[in-house]
């Protein structure tokens, strides 16, 4: 599947009735197997853009085209698990067609085997995030949407989950769209980085990363980051 996004304008009305434009002239397309990353300052409208792509918000000018039967897997900023169902039930409810082998592989990849029968209320934020990632992948998505999946985790946890997400993204030919404000995450996971401005958000720069994800060691990542810094100051 191919994802094409064109948002001409998206505005909110505040309580006083004033109109605030959050997104302006954002257009990009992603091919299967490609990971796009949206980077921008907090509050610039990244999450709003993801909600439009996911079909949760229809009140905007422009269009998002994806095949009608696209399966979407989404990791929200907060895990949004069903607190009254166990970890395993949460996955099974979201992905009724997933078989035991598929679920076992996911639980193993994300080190969740010990927590299958726990309720979400008994999990730490890091664990709940991993369950949310597992749920998004259990539906075998054509479009994977990640909204700051590594936010507010400590460095060690974030690094580990980043690695796990990287290998899971490699394992399926899907379109992945991620939002982050962390350059490190963007460089490690993305194939194309879209730098967004402050409100109303526009795309300032698009940086493709050609090196395959699994070949990106610390040296390559430092190099890419330096290159991005040079482009930013050069403008």
């Amino acid at each position, binding site marked *: 599947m191919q994802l094409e996004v064109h948002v001409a304008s998206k505005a909110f009305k505040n309580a006083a009735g004033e109109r605030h434009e959050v997104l302006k002239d954002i257009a990009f397309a992603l091919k299967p197997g490609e990971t796009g990353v949206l980077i921008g300052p907090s509050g610039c409208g990244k999450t709003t853009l993801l*909600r439009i792509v*996911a*079909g*949760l918000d229809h009140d905007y000018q422009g269009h998002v085209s994806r095949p009608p039967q696209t*399966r*979407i*897997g*989404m990791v*929200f900023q*907060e895990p*949004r698990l*069903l*607190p*009254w*169902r166990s970890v395993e039930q949460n996955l099974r*409810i*979201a992905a*009724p067609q997933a078989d035991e082998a598929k679920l076992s592989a996911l639980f193993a990849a994300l080190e969740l085997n010990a927590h299958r029968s726990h*309720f979400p*209320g*008994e999990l730490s934020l890091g664990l709940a995030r991993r369950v949310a990632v597992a*749920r998004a992948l259990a*539906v075998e998505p054509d479009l994977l*949407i990640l909204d700051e999946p590594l936010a507010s985790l400590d460095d060690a946890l974030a690094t580990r989950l980043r690695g796990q997400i990287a290998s899971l993204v490699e394992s399926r030919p899907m379109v992945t769209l991620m939002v982050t404000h962390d350059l490190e995450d963007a460089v490690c996971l993305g194939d194309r980085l879209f730098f967004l401005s402050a409100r109303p958000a526009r795309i300032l720069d698009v940086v493709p990363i050609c090196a395959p994800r699994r070949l990106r060691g610390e040296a390559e990542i430092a190099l890419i980051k330096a290159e991005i810094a040079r482009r930013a100051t050069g403008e």
Partner: protein
Amino acid sequence: MRLLSLALFIVTWWVASLLAGSAKLPPPPAVLAAVITEARSGALFVNLGATLARVALAFALAMTLGVAIGYWMGRVRIANRLGDPWLILLLNLPALVVIVLAYIWAGLTEAAAIAAIAINKLPTAIVTLREGTRALDPALDEMATAFAFTRGRAFRHVVLPQLAPYIAAAARSGLALIWKIVLVAELLGRPNGVGFEIGVAFQLFDIPLLLAYALSFGAVVLVIETVLVQPFEVKLSRWRPRAA
């Protein structure tokens, strides 16, 4: 602890009956004798059974309609606008008015009695469920939309668990209301049931018989609360952290 509180009740009753005189308040053994006589003749069970059947039917009817209408009014703004004046009217309509009108319009029938009881309970169930529906978490609704949950799956796994405490609350308060109203309905227009027997006892000034029925009825209510309602609530809140 429950036994202790029961013993305290009986002691208080006995002392009060000594002070007031057994004509006004018969002591426990006299009432127990009345209970046994009624149980021997089978009348106690017939009447309790008739009352319980009415309670069960009216409760089921009012809960089903109340949950459906309350959910609808909580979700759909126009339904709420249309239904709200009716709801306020029903909420404040005295039970006696509903019962008397039901008997006048539908005759002294079983259907009229059950409908009248259900109508008395219906508005509180609607109000509770409407509040519950308004409190549904929009974040989880979005999750269900993003993951393309079918309607049935979303209702069963996302909506219903959030409504469960409200349904339990509506059931609790509704059951208490029905216990009270069913006797009035029986007193006014049924030839059997606990309410009818209490009416008879009242006319004959037979205080032991009156207390025999009142207390047997109270015992049944207590048993249903401990055996059915409370375990059900515990099961529903199993996922919550223990302290709550």
